[in-house]
């Protein structure tokens, strides 16, 4: 009897030992193979009569976990299931505003932050604005996304102008729409939109993403200012500066020769052009901010 007990006790350390070995062999986190058995929201809806809202919550949690899992842990960062998961969630609960809002961001943001599919993100928002026509925030998102991701200033202006009639919509929708039409969408308009998204976002990945976008816009502005200083230097000295350090003579502080991420700006002395370094942590794959024409 005692022998059996000792044998069983001897097995106890084997469990953490085996787990430790497994982790060291396969890595600390092993993303599970994600499978979606049902691809249609209508089919899933039929499975939960009377409990659609609960099912929507479950699917929304799965969407968030799937996005987070791919975003943080997966090297390949494939987001194949993201759109169907959001589609099922919003079919089960057409009033789940958060699923339209965050779902569209997850889909639209370029990799590695998101799926890099703004068309699908906009499709989600269009369904959201139809399902919840009195929620101005979704219309705001739709307008912003048309401008920021598809660079369609006219469409964005139309949507924001229409959204300005929704009760409770901010007064600046109309002025922003007018600016979009007048200027065709410049950096300042982008800044206003990202600032708005930054202010409205909860603490977390979406807010920090908006912050990075604002920093990039700041960096681009600063690079333009430095280029103007280079021209001023050339006008005064009759030659271009050999490095940005020479701009100190014009009162340019060393700190302003670095972008918000702390990396020095690139300077092309032949063209007299200052640009944000391609090595800057601010840049991410596929990010191409619009420049003032």
């Amino acid at each position, binding site marked *: 009897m005692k022998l059996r007990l000792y044998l069983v006790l001897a097995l106890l350390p084997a469990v953490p030992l085996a787990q430790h070995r497994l982790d060291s062999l396969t890595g600390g986190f092993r993303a599970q193979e994600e499978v979606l058995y049902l691809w249609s929201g209508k089919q899933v809806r*039929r499975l939960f*009569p*009377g*409990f*659609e*809202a*609960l099912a929507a*919550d479950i699917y*929304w*949690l799965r969407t*968030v*976990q799937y996005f987070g899992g791919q975003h943080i842990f997966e090297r390949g960062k494939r987001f194949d299931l993201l759109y169907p998961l959001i589609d099922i969630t919003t079919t089960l*609960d057409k*009033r*789940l505003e*958060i699923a339209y809002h*965050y779902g569209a961001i997850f889909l639209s943001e370029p990799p590695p932050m998101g799926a890099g599919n703004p068309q699908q993100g906009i499709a989600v928002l269009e369904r959201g604005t139809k399902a919840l026509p009195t929620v101005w925030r979704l219309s705001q998102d739709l307008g912003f996304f048309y401008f920021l991701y598809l660079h369609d200033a006219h469409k964005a202006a139309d949507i924001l102008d229409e959204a300005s009639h929704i009760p409770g919509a901010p007064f600046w929708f109309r002025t922003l729409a007018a600016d979009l039409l007048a200027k065709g969408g410049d950096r300042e308009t982008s800044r206003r939109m990202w600032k708005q998204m930054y202010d409205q976002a*909860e603490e*977390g990945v979406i807010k920090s993403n908006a912050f990075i976008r604002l920093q990039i816009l700041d960096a681009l502005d600063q690079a333009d200012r430095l280029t103007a200083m280079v021209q001023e230097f050339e006008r005064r000295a009759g030659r271009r500066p050999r490095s940005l350090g020479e701009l100190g003579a014009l009162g340019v502080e060393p700190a302003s020769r670095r972008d918000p991420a702390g990396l020095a700006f690139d300077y092309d002395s032949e063209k007299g052009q200052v640009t944000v370094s391609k090595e800057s942590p601010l840049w991410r794959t596929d990010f191409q901010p619009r420049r003032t024409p």
Partner: protein
Amino acid sequence: MNRLIAVAANTFRETVRERVLYNLVFFAILMTLSGLLLGELSIRQDEKIIKDIGLAAMDIFGTLIAIFIGVGLVSKEIERRSLYPLLAKPLNRDELFLGKFVGLGFTLLVNLGTMALGLYLTLLLTGRRPEPRLLEAIYPIYLGLLLVTSLALLFSTLTSSTLAAVCTLALVVTGRFSDVIRNMKEVAPGAPTWLTEALYYGLPNFRNFDFKDSVAYGDPVPLGVLGFVTLYALAYIGLVLGLGLKVFRSRDF
């Protein structure tokens, strides 16, 4: 009347001793409390998720309690032959049958109250204001549970407890698909209208008792609607209990 109350009180005492009841209530409260964790993972949806899970737990586990305890109320008495000494007492069959229904109805009320308390506590723990408006969803759930109880009791008089549970569950699930039955013509254009209409109006429509979604979103449920839901429940329960009484009276024990 006193005899009916005595049977109801006895049924209440008998049902609260059932182990299955405690298991189900335990899981219902566990499910409600799980909303605390799940809400954290949901991005700004914690309150809605807590309400959705809490109300769904009341509905699901309440239905299971109504079915699994309800089907045993009469059939077990018959199977254990404990019905005979009862019928030998100065107690008519109607009082026994209705007393069982009232007793289980009270048990369900106490359980639902406990689960509602769990939901309100969960909301309080997360710093939310416990809204009395949640009762606008809980009250129809209770009416639905009473209807399930009446169906379970009817089947309990007709057949064994296992078969009664299967029949009741089948009817409850079918009743939740009432919108599918109503729109059957869309998927089966050949289906005769009279058949779909008969099924739609004949089968218990459990969709009528579902206000969970509206209440979770803070929509008010009009009093008139609640009034007609109550009328529907009372009428249907009355019909089922009437049928059950007729069967129970006519059975030869």
